[in-house]
């Protein structure tokens, strides 16, 4: 379980980007964090991952094996000289996993074993995302965190990817937390949505969020 209690965050004593966030992630949840660009979704994820420290409030975590799948186009340098195999092998060594066959198992699971000798920068968006998920799965995570998994990948790859994430959550018991800008997939897959707006956040059901979104959108057209 991850529990955020009255969490505030600002960079270098500036204005608060996030204010009084209260959020509990329980085992088996599939939570999508939704909201406008710049609302603080990614900051919230970085706080949960421990990459940022809250200015106020407490974050407690009982998950032992967290894994993160970054947003491919934002984070990674496509010119970086590294093969798919090397990406997974370094991760294996950092996690001190002795079993080298895990690399093959995880790549095969994602259907990308054939790409093992290719440079990561030469892959399509969908292929790259699958490789990064394969990397994340190597550590047998109990919590898997995604940053906008559908960014930069085509519609067909998106349709392949989300059922797989859903399967990891439902059948392998991995708790999933994702920053999501794709409303369709957020509503279709999540057990709960966490809506961040103006630095504040609250849980809502996918249906309630959709109703709220539609009323705002339709209201805007009027």
């Amino acid at each position, binding site marked *: 379980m991850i529990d955020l209690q009255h969490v505030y965050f600002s960079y270098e004593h500036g204005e608060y980007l996030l204010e009084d966030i209260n959020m509990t992630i329980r085992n088996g949840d599939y939570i999508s964090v939704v909201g406008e660009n710049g609302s603080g979704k990614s900051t919230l994820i*970085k706080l949960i*991952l*421990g*990459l940022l420290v809250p200015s106020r409030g407490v974050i407690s975590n009982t998950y032992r094996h*967290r*894994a*993160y799948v*970054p947003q491919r186009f934002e*984070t*990674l*340098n496509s*010119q*970086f*000289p*590294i*093969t798919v*195999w*090397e*990406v997974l*092998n*370094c*991760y294996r*060594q*950092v*996690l001190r996993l002795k079993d080298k066959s895990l690399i093959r198992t995880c790549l095969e699971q994602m259907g990308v074993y054939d790409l093992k*000798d290719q*440079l990561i920068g030469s892959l399509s968006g969908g292929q790259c995302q699958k490789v990064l998920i394969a*990397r994340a799965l190597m*550590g047998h995570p109990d919590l898997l965190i995604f940053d906008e998994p559908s960014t930069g990948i085509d519609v067909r790859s998106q349709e392949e990817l989300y059922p797989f994430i859903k399967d990891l959550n439902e059948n392998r018991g991995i708790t999933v937390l994702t920053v999501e800008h794709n409303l369709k997939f957020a509503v279709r897959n999540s057990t709960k949505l966490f809506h961040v707006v103006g630095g504040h956040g609250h849980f809502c059901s996918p249906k309630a969020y959709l109703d709220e979104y539609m009323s705002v959108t339709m209201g805007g057209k009027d």
Partner: protein
Amino acid sequence: MFEYAFMQNAFIVAILISIVCPLIGIFLVLRRYSMIGDALSHASLAGVAVGLLLDWNPVLGAFGLTSFFGILIEVLRSRFRRYAELILVIILSLSVGLAITIISAGLVHTNVESFLFGSILTVSTDDVYAVIALSVVSMALIAKLYPQLVMLTFDEDGAQIAGVHSKVVNYIFSVLVAATISVSIRIVGILVISSLIALPVAAALQLRKGFRQTLMYSIFFSFVDILSGLFLSYYIDAAPGGVTALTAVAVLVLVIIYKEGILSWREKRRQS
């Protein structure tokens, strides 16, 4: 030419430099930290001056003070993220100012030119021992930290989440950069160390290979650059630093021509 002891010393040092420089250089270039290498190579002149002032071996003096400046840059960079470039200028001013003051005031008596441009004649047996010790320790540490360094360079957030202590690794890496610069001072000289750190890696990157292969090609190009520099400088009686820098640029240009010209031409022919 190997009948001379100074040439044997220079040759041993050159081989070690050709391995250590790209080992560190590949991480500096890919993390876009090349300018740190440049700032620290200039800072090493202060280390040489202080080393001579205290009657230490100049290579070890350079290592001590360059490590200090490397760690200082890392500390200041993590505290003042928005002013990373300014921090390099401050460290450069401080270290070069210190070196020029000590040397120009006549507090030490040395041939500064040999440290700036590199020299084959001045590599002493003590220098060789210092270079061997620093190189072996650097290589062992890089081998030990290899997966952590690759992950930090490729995906810093992912590495931290996976448990890499990025601050500790970055501090160790700063000391390794200092060690690399210190071992290179004697042969290639302070003014061209950064080219030796960056150019063989830049040439290897053109070939679009995986990480390990890029590293191997970098070492190969570095080996060609330094040994050509050493032999040519011996025959034309010039400072090895200058000749090595020119060779490094020439190799980079040749690799680009090979890649853009020959490989592209073959690819087009294959497609047609």
